[in-house]
């Protein structure tokens, strides 16, 4: 299992060390959601966390986001321990979590509203992002006037607005149909290649993880822990057709075998 960051040997952007998370409920025995989770992300690296439902991957994301405290272990961003949401982070959830009472532009500008900055200063950036994601002309429409895919694009714009260094994505395309999902995978790759964020991407789709990632962290459940970390050194930009190549297939097969050993897919 890889523990140290790959590459230069400098301090990794995100370091997660021996993290446990236990939920205690009154009257019931404690539930161990995560056990001894250790990994790191280099700056500008795209890493996916892949695992079956119930493996604690969403819990892990909440811990990294500083929304929930760790039970044991340390999470550090640029060498500083996380104990609350860091300033330079954007989050995209599986559900787009757009506010129905704000139009799309105001939804994208939500981080500015909370930070009490002047909306006018950030409107050009917001409009530029909306245009980049194919939503030009929809800024004064409301979320409930958009399709699921368009809504998720708005929520990606919101996450990118303040140009965060770290982007956390919790199964962002999990609720979308397969074609929209492919389209947004391509678009996410394009945005990531031009803006170069450090991305932690959670998914339960093997193909999606391999397609998007520099490395794939494979998790098992009960309790959630890391099985292996798979490097995917395929060249970028990756076209959708790369999924039919033998190289791509071998990564997918390798990960699928891990899940089979774990006891998944027993027809």
């Amino acid at each position, binding site marked *: 299992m890889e523990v140290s960051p790959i590459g230069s040997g400098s301090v990794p952007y995100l370091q997660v060390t021996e993290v446990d998370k236990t939920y205690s409920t009154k009257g019931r025995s404690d539930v161990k959601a995560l056990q001894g989770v250790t990994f790191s992300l280099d700056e500008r690296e795209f890493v996916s966390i892949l695992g079956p439902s119930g493996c604690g991957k969403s819990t892990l994301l909440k811990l990294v986001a500083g929304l929930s405290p760790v039970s044991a272990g340390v999470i550090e961003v640029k060498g500083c321990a996380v104990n609350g949401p860091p300033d330079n982070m954007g989050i995209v959830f599986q559900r787009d979590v757009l506010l129905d009472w704000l139009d799309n532009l105001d939804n994208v500008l939500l981080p500015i509203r909370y930070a009490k900055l002047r909306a006018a200063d950030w409107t050009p950036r917001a409009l530029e992002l909306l245009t980049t994601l194919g939503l030009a002309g929809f800024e004064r429409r409301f979320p409930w006037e958009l399709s699921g*895919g368009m809504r998720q694009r708005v929520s990606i714009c919101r996450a990118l607005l303040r140009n965060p260094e770290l982007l956390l994505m919790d199964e962002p395309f999990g609720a979308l149909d397969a074609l929209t999902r492919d389209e947004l995978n391509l678009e996410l790759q394009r945005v990531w290649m031009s803006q170069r964020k450090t991305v932690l991407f959670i998914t339960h789709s093997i193909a999606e993880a391999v397609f998007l990632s520099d490395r794939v962290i494979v998790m098992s459940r009960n309790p959630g822990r890391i099985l292996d970390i798979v490097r995917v050194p395929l060249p970028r930009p990756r076209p959708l057709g790369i999924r039919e190549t033998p190289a791509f297939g071998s990564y997918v097969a390798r990960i699928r075998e891990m899940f089979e050993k774990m006891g998944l897919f027993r027809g």
Partner: protein
Amino acid sequence: MIALQWFTQPSRARSVVTVLVGTAVVWQLAVVLLKVPDFILPAPSEIFAELASSPGWYLRHAYFTLQSCFIGFAIAFGIGVLAAIGIVYSRFLEDTLYTLLVSLNSIPKIALAPLFIIWLGTGLSSKVAISALIALFAIVIDTVLGLRSADPDAIDLSRSLRASPLQILVTIRFPSALPAMFAGTKVAISLALVGAIAGEFVASEQGLGYVILVAQGMFQTTRVFAAIILLGVIGTVLFYLVDLAERMLIPWHVSHRGGRASGAHGG
């Protein structure tokens, strides 16, 4: 714009007018054909003649009743919303105030009306107090429900953007609560009118409740019906004013979207 749409919605207006006119016609015919005496059931034409004979006098009494109802409702709304916010944010208030309110709710509030006459006299203030008390519960209970219905993901998102609890209340919880609050308000405005009339029944020198009581004592049934018709009109107008406010304040709410939601589609 939205107000205009509502008033010009042909189907709704047509059905209301049809039902009312139809009822009046059947009533009139029945009274005339069956020769029902006025003191048992006056014909609609008699009632309108009675209203037209002294419109100023009726308006003065209607104004008094409306005043108790409005002030009582406003007090109930103010106290109710503040109490609900307190209950949602404070475990202590939930355990004490909310528990107390829920248990008091089972008392028929009208039974308390004579007490308020003793405490506050026979003037406006006792009617306002009864009106406020009877309307309060619906507002508190539905506002608590509404504030708790906020999307947990939206709250997590806000926390990840370092929003303060006050910002989360104003930006997320309060707008999420509006649909439930309006449901409570519609009930409360009708109850406030009931409270005002109940107060006038117990002891008063003014108001439509007083008119009904005095006219009943003298077998002036036409006058009783005139006051009842006015109360019906007031109650209906109040209800639709709240309904109208709801349409203007929460146009995003699912029950109002109609055809507008299916506007845009694609990627």
